[in-house]
């Protein structure tokens, strides 16, 4: 599974991600259906919605780990299992075992060739290029300073940068992140979000980030995918996160409140079914 080169792109105008009437079921239960959306290359898109609505499931489908039950999904114009080499993925994770005695850069290295059989030989040809690429990607995420420290000793924010470096090390064209901001403080949430935006802008990578709270990332985002009521809509945040759109999606009366500093709060009649986009 070599990362495909950029000139393999089929034609101008190919979407980074295209879902047509897509549906996924798990264990006989429908997770979402009739989802049609298109993400352009180089966009920074957040996936929002209440817990259990299928945000992680959507990422699994994009990764080709979960088949659709209806409709179609294309990643850079190909079926997901043929696009695996184009994708970088950050699974949902709060932390590593604090006793994990492995350098941060070793973890990044696993993203480069951890899925290949065999073991790297100490003086094998190409070893220097791998090390150079790892240095490079550590620089991109601003993690050079602590790349020699054991993973178990890193703070939450430092760890997320290392995990982003790992997902980027093979030059993917799309970065999928599952709740990377969870359990980070507000400052780190904003820092990781602006890092994601920079990666979009300077590296041309499409970023799709599952997020719990839209506010720390609102200023950086291009568009949001809002999932609720078994379906999803996509659009600019100010178009999607509105009382009308969300009421239609939830099929319930929803109000979106905007504070004077521009933060959004979603309030509904069925509080257990709705995530409040406030800070915990």
């Amino acid at each position, binding site marked *: *599974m070599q990362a495909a080169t950029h000139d393999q792109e089929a034609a101008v105008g190919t979407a980074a991600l295209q879902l047509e009437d897509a549906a996924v079921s798990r264990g006989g239960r429908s997770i979402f259906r009739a989802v049609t959306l298109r993400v352009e290359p180089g966009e920074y898109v957040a996936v929002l919605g209440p817990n259990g609505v299928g945000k992680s499931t959507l990422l699994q489908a994009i*990764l080709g*780990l979960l088949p659709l039950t209806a409709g179609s999904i294309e990643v850079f114009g190909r079926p997901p299992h043929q696009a*695996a080499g184009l994708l970088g*993925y*950050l*699974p*949902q*994770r709060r932390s*590593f*075992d604090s006793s*994990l*005695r*492995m*350098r941060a850069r*070793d*973890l990044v290295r*696993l*993203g480069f*060739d*951890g*899925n*290949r*059989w*065999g*073991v*790297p030989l*100490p003086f094998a040809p190409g070893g220097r290029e791998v090390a150079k690429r790892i240095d490079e990607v550590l620089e991109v995420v601003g993690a050079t300073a602590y790349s*020699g420290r*054991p*993973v178990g000793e890193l703070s939450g924010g430092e760890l997320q940068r290392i995990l982003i470096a*790992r997902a980027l090390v093979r030059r993917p064209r799309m970065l999928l992140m599952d709740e990377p901001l969870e359990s980070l403080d507000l400052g780190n949430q904003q820092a990781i979000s602006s890092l994601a935006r920079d990666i979009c802008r300077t590296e041309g990578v499409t970023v799709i980030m599952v997020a719990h709270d839209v506010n720390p990332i609102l200023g950086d985002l291009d568009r949001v995918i809002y999932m609720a009521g078994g379906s999803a809509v996509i659009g600019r945040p100010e178009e999607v996160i509105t009382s009308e759109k969300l009421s239609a999606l939830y099929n319930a009366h929803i109000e979106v409140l905007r504070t004077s500093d521009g933060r959004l709060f979603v309030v509904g009649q069925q509080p257990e079914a709705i995530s409040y986009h406030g800070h915990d």
Partner: protein
Amino acid sequence: MIDALDQLFSYQFMQNAFLAGTTAAVLAGIVGYFVVLRGEAFAGHTLAVVGFPGAAGAILFGLPQLVGLAVLCTASGLGIGAFGQGAVRDRHAESAAIGTIQAFLLALGFLFVSLYKGLLVGVYGILFGTFLGITRDQALLLLAIAVVALAVLVVIGRPLLYVSVDGPAAAAAGVPVRALSIGFLVLLGLAIASTALITGALLVFALLVMPAAAANELVVRPGLAMIVSTALALVIVWSGLLISYFTDLPIGFLVTTVGFVIYLAARLARRLTRA
């Protein structure tokens, strides 16, 4: 001193003991790194305990002890893997499966011993280790097992490291997580069978966990940690054999004590270098 060593190596039983001990130390040192990394000490302990019915059964049925050990340890590794591993590794299911298998097989060992009605000395050796009875054939069989196990480890080493550190990310990168986890338990069974021949079933951790845990205190690079772990395991075995030869103290006690001292020293060294 040189004369004493010359004399020591002129005995074939000591040659066999050193050959078997060295082989077991290399295998246990490397496999042990993954045991510590994966937090599978409980699985390791169970496979070690399973060595008891394995060896006792072999004696009862007149088979070589190592054959009984290897068969039952790898079979139990497969069993733990099959019962305890779903699509995702589930620690609770795994530990329940481990406990169940451990209790049953320990009872089986007890049955074999009572059926055998032989000398209790044999049981003692199975549990706490001996190096006097290792034959040339056993040492060579051990070497063959270790070569196969290490060859497999060379092939699966890198993805196994990925799975051990971050299963979900490895799965997304196309690594066969479940097959590797079960495969590792089989390798662990082989490593434990080899180690148990020297240290006894109950003291397997002297070579399987202590060197790797000490190496983890000293270095943070995976490759280097495996080398250090192996070197420490060799130091433990060789010094254990030598001291045992000259003092007649039991080998199981000696390797465990040397291992323990090395582990403590490694922890202390890390504490001191940090401050």
